[in-house]
């Protein structure tokens, strides 16, 4: 169970290696024993020094015993290294009960000879010292515990209790020195826990004996929010991460978060994934977001940021990919109900396991804890998309600088895993003023690849939503403001009306559209009327043309008739003339007259 959950986490994590040099130089130089504790092996470059004791110290309740126990349990379950737990404070039963809540079945491991537990009870009131003694009894018991299971790992929790039981401190110290020598000779990797003392790491100065590796656990409360931190004070013979690393203890044990950023070396994908809103995809060069990019939706309250996020979540699940939805404002069921009202059914996806909702208040714990929590969830679920709604609430869990560095690390982490990150950000109207729409008070804008801005447009007694793409790296994107309409069937993006009367949205846009429709209708009717008019005119003209043609026909017929009459008369006249001439017996000269008459006849015929 344990290994199943933790193995996938450890494989991609080394990218987050805090100290990259460790790998090349020290791995060979100093053999290490992997703890199996999530994240710790990255910081230490492989684990605790093999065959040597490590001191784990810290104040009360900072997780020392748990650290030690997890070291043993993971050794027994994951690395096939049995362990011996020598407890000075709790009995074996108490210990088993305490770690059962973390999913460690200590009783079964004891029964299976994977772990040996010995409770060394030192009761000062029952002990009187009468001279010289040694701790051979403890050595024998330790040796027995180690030999009974073939232990490779040993925990002494908390050996300082011995100091309360014995008054001869000098003798005790000599014995402790011998004990650590003994452990080294046995070749076991030991974890010694110690309570933090004044001015030194442990009350009894155990660090004096354990000089190879010292890990300090801390539990600090800042602004009523507690954060657990881990620091490697010393690790002889190897380089290590020196920062304070936050860690959490939850139902699966401890996880440490290597806080160092991985730098800008991650690979990118050019695959595109849909936003779930077709019109928005069109605005983003037609294909939506890049896989593995970071997307920010910012806007004032009630502008539909969560709806956009829910659309993206639903689309991710529709593709059959896993989505992690971190809601910091609404409970899952509230979100399901609200999204149902816009036609998005998220619950079936959640039931199928594709959608994992995680709702918590940002003030529940510190930023680091959130980050560790997100790390863990991402490692476990391995989602394609992570939605954080909203990131602005983190500011209430820390200062804005803390928030920025946390988000930076989160974005880097998600990018390294090729997880598409979708953040919403609530821009408060008061701080943003009129001009700084394009700023986030957590200062992450420069880390964002695609930035959508949803804003309200107040016009004519109405508040409408507008959406535009502020930036989108690596793709041609629309420069247009779209009206963002939330309908019972989801989000719809519409063109805003831009014309002589300015940018119109909402009912003004609708009114303008209606007006335009009416105008268009009128225009069409006018055109039809004019068309009819023209038709009528043409018809009239055609009639006129027909009349004229008829007239012309009549005229030409008349002309022909006249010409014929004329010809007939001419013929008659010429016949008469000829007859007269014949009668007179005229000279040949008159033949010319006749010829002349013939020519005229000819010409007439031609005409």
């Amino acid at each position, binding site marked *: 169970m344990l290994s199943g959950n933790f193995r996938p986490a450890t494989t991609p994590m080394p990218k987050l290696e805090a100290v990259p040099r460790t790998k090349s130089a020290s791995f060979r130089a100093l053999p290490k024993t992997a703890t199996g504790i999530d994240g710790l092996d990255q910081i230490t470059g492989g684990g605790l020094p093999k065959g040597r004791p490590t001191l784990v110290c810290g104040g009360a309740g900072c997780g020392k015993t748990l650290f030690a126990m997890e070291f043993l349990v993971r050794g027994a379950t994951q690395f096939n290294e049995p362990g011996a737990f020598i407890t000075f404070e709790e009995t074996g039963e108490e210990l088993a009960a305490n770690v059962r809540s973390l999913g460690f079945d200590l009783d079964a491991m004891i029964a299976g000879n994977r772990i040996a537990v*010995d409770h*060394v*009870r*030192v*009761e000062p009131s*029952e*002990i*009187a*010292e*009468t*001279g*010289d*003694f*040694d*701790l*051979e*009894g*403890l050595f*024998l*018991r330790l*040796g*027995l*515990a180690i030999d009974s299971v073939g232990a490779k790992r040993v925990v002494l929790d908390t050996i300082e209790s*011995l100091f309360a*039981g*014995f008054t001869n401190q000098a003798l005790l110290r000599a014995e402790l020195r011998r004990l650590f020598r003994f452990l080294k000779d046995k070749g076991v990797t030991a974890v010694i826990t110690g309570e933090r003392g004044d001015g030194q790491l442990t009350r009894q100065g155990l660090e004096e004996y354990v000089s190879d590796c010292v890990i300090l656990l801390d539990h600090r409360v800042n602004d009523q929010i507690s954060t657990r931190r881990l620091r490697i004070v010393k690790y002889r013979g190897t380089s290590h991460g020196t920062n304070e690393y936050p860690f959490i203890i939850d139902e699966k044990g401890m996880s440490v978060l290597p806080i160092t950023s991985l730098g800008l070396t991650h690979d990118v994908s050019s695959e595109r994934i849909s936003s779930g809103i077709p019109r928005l995809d069109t605005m983003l060069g037609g294909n939506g977001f890049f896989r593995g990019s970071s997307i920010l939706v910012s806007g004032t309250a009630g502008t539909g940021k969560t709806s956009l996020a829910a659309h993206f979540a639903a689309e991710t699940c529709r593709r059959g990919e896993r989505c992690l939805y971190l809601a910091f404002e609404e409970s899952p069921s509230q979100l399901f109900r609200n999204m149902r009202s816009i036609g998005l059914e998220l619950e079936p996806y959640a039931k199928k396991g594709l959608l994992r909702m995680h709702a918590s208040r940002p003030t529940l714990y510190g930023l680091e804890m959130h980050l560790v929590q997100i790390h863990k969830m991402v490692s476990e679920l391995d989602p394609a998309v992570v939605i954080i709604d909203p990131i602005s609430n983190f500011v209430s869990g820390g200062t804005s600088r803390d928030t920025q560095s946390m988000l930076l690390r989160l974005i880097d982490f998600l990018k390294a895993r090729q997880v598409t990150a979708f953040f919403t950000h609530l821009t408060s109207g008061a701080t943003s003023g009129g001009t700084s729409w394009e700023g986030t008070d957590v200062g992450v804008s420069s880390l964002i690849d695609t930035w959508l801005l949803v804003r309200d447009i107040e016009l004519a007694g109405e508040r409408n939503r507008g959406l535009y793409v502020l930036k989108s790296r690596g793709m041609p994107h629309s420069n247009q403001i779209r009206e963002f309409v939330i309908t019972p069937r989801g989000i719809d993006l519409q063109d805003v009306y831009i014309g002589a009367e300015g940018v119109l949205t909402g009912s003004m846009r609708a009114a303008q559209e209606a007006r335009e429709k009416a105008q268009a209708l009128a225009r069409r009717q006018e055109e039809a009327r004019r068309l009819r008019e023209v038709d009528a005119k043409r018809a009239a003209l055609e009639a006129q043309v027909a009349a004229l043609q008829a007239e012309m026909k009549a005229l030409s017929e008349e002309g022909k008739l006249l010409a014929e009459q004329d010809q007939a008369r001419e013929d008659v006249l010429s016949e008469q003339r000829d007859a007269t001439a014949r009668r007179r017996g005229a000279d040949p000269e008159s033949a010319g007259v006749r010829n002349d008459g013939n020519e005229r006849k000819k010409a007439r015929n031609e005409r």
Partner: protein
Amino acid sequence: MNGKRLEMSADKKANGNGKTNGNAAEPVWELRLYTAGQTPKSLAALANLKRLCEENLKGKYKIEVIDLMANPRLAKEHQIVAIPTLVKKLPSPLRQIIGDLSDREKALVGLQLTPADR
């Protein structure tokens, strides 16, 4: 081997003890000494214990010596940390006295055998 011999001697004493106990109503002191091999400290502790008992509890005590080297499991079962450890089982209350018993006064106080009891 040695442990056995010591136990034998302890048993012998216990037997002798039983005889004296028959007519006296005084309680029997059951003492158990844990050692780890024949170390000088263990031997010194046994010698000191015997002397103390002879001087203060003559005839009404029995000593059992347990060599943890031979049986380390008992160290866990009997919650023994320091060597040598003397456990006063009876009369109650149970007391643990560690060390080689060279500090006579402390040993007597630890056994709740103040010199006045003599």
